[in-house]
């Protein structure tokens, strides 16, 4: 279970969240621009310290302003994938994937590489990869570190429609294969609809609040594979 109580002022807006979501499958996080999606992403990952609140994942306290706990991102077991992938440009794909890999987990790493179809790219430099390949490698790098939760920040928004569908399909498959809970941030409802089994919606106002739908909304279905919902075969 992911529990988030958060109060954080952002300019003239107050982000005031109190939500609980199951740490399983793919959870969507959606909301209009400026609603605080990125702030929530950063607070969960430990890249930004909220003014007050408490964040726990499966009972593991990441942040608690009352008891002054604010874990370093390295100790949070929260993986991140940014919109542009951001593979380390001075390392090969293989070294990127091994950066956070726990020792003795080569089989798991090989499975992720296989699931994301990266075997033929391991010795390439990130600059040589296409946008979709870079994004798959970034997802693999984060998954191989075996996080408790993986945050994906608009991971397909920079890809063209065909590549977007294929990458979303692979995200759905690799989530099912590894079982790593994911939070998928997007401003595109169709992506959320195609991928996620529950949705956190941020409502923007002078005070940003959130609602969680633990069951799919009417019209929200989770196709298997996800690409079917996008017309990708």
């Amino acid at each position, binding site marked *: 279970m992911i529990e988030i109580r958060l109060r954080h002022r952002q300019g003239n807006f107050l982000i005031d969240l109190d939500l609980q979501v199951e740490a399983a499958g793919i959870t969507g996080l959606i909301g209009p621009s400026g609603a605080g999606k990125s702030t929530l992403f950063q607070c969960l990952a430990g890249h930004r310290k909220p003014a007050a609140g408490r964040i726990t994942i499966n009972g593991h306290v990441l942040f608690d302003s009352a008891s002054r706990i604010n874990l*370093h991102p390295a100790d949070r077991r929260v993986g991140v994938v940014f919109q542009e992938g951001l593979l*380390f440009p001075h390392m090969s794909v293989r070294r990127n994937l091994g950066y956070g890999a726990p020792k003795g987990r080569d089989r798991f790493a090989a499975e992720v590489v296989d699931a994301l179809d990266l075997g033929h790219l391991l010795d390439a430099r990130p600059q040589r990869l296409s946008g979709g390949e870079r994004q798959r490698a970034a997802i693999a790098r984060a998954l191989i570190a075996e996080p408790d939760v993986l945050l994906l920040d608009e991971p397909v928004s920079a890809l063209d429609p065909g590549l977007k569908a294929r990458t979303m399909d692979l995200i759905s498959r690799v989530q099912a294969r590894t079982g790593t809970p994911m939070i998928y941030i997007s401003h595109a409802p169709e992506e959320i609809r195609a991928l996620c089994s529950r949705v956190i919606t941020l409502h923007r106002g002078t005070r940003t609040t959130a609602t969680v739908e633990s069951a799919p909304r009417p019209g929200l279905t989770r196709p298997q594979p996800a690409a079917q919902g996008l017309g990708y075969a």
Partner: protein
Amino acid sequence: MLSPMETEALMLSLRSSAAAVLWSLPLAVLAGWGLGRFRFPGHGVLNAVVHMPLVLPPVVLGYLLLVALGREGFIGAPLHALFGIRIAFTGTAVVIACAVVGFPLMVRAVRQSAEAIDPRYEQAARSLGASDLKVFLTVTLPLMAPGILAGITLAFARAVGEFGATITLAGNIPSRTQTLPLALYTVTQSPGGEDAAMRFCILSLALAGLALMASEAVSRRMQAEARA
């Protein structure tokens, strides 16, 4: 062929400039990174102090160093009294003068490259379980490498051409502190020294050209590796 005076001045210049760059490099990298990536109380003051040698006349700089490091200086006196170490008018003084004038150039280049790094690379590395030290060594430092290389080149070139601070702090002692510019200055002060002066000029030009070519070659290699 080079005369003994030319060889000595050339070797002393190369040794002193290389030593100056090597000794000041770690501090310059830390200062450039710190100034480029963090805002802290005293940031502006530190920035001004680091860049002071760029705007101060080199002779002023040399004199201030002499006041600090001379036998009666507030650093030089205890060093001499406690350890018998003398800095002023020695080879060490040449290295210090070269290091001080080259330092801000190195810091500026490193700072610019540090500011250009997308902080999310470091955030990604931390979220992969890396400590801050590991992130710095394995992500930040390699991403700053082009700036560090540019800084090394600039500081080395500046050190090879250093005159005012060196002659004030280290004097102009043949075989000990007489670098290329000082040797050139010496022969220009001697009657009939025009030919020797021209030879020193050509030597200096050749050295500068070689340094630029080496820097260009390393830079190209790094770019090729990044593309590979």
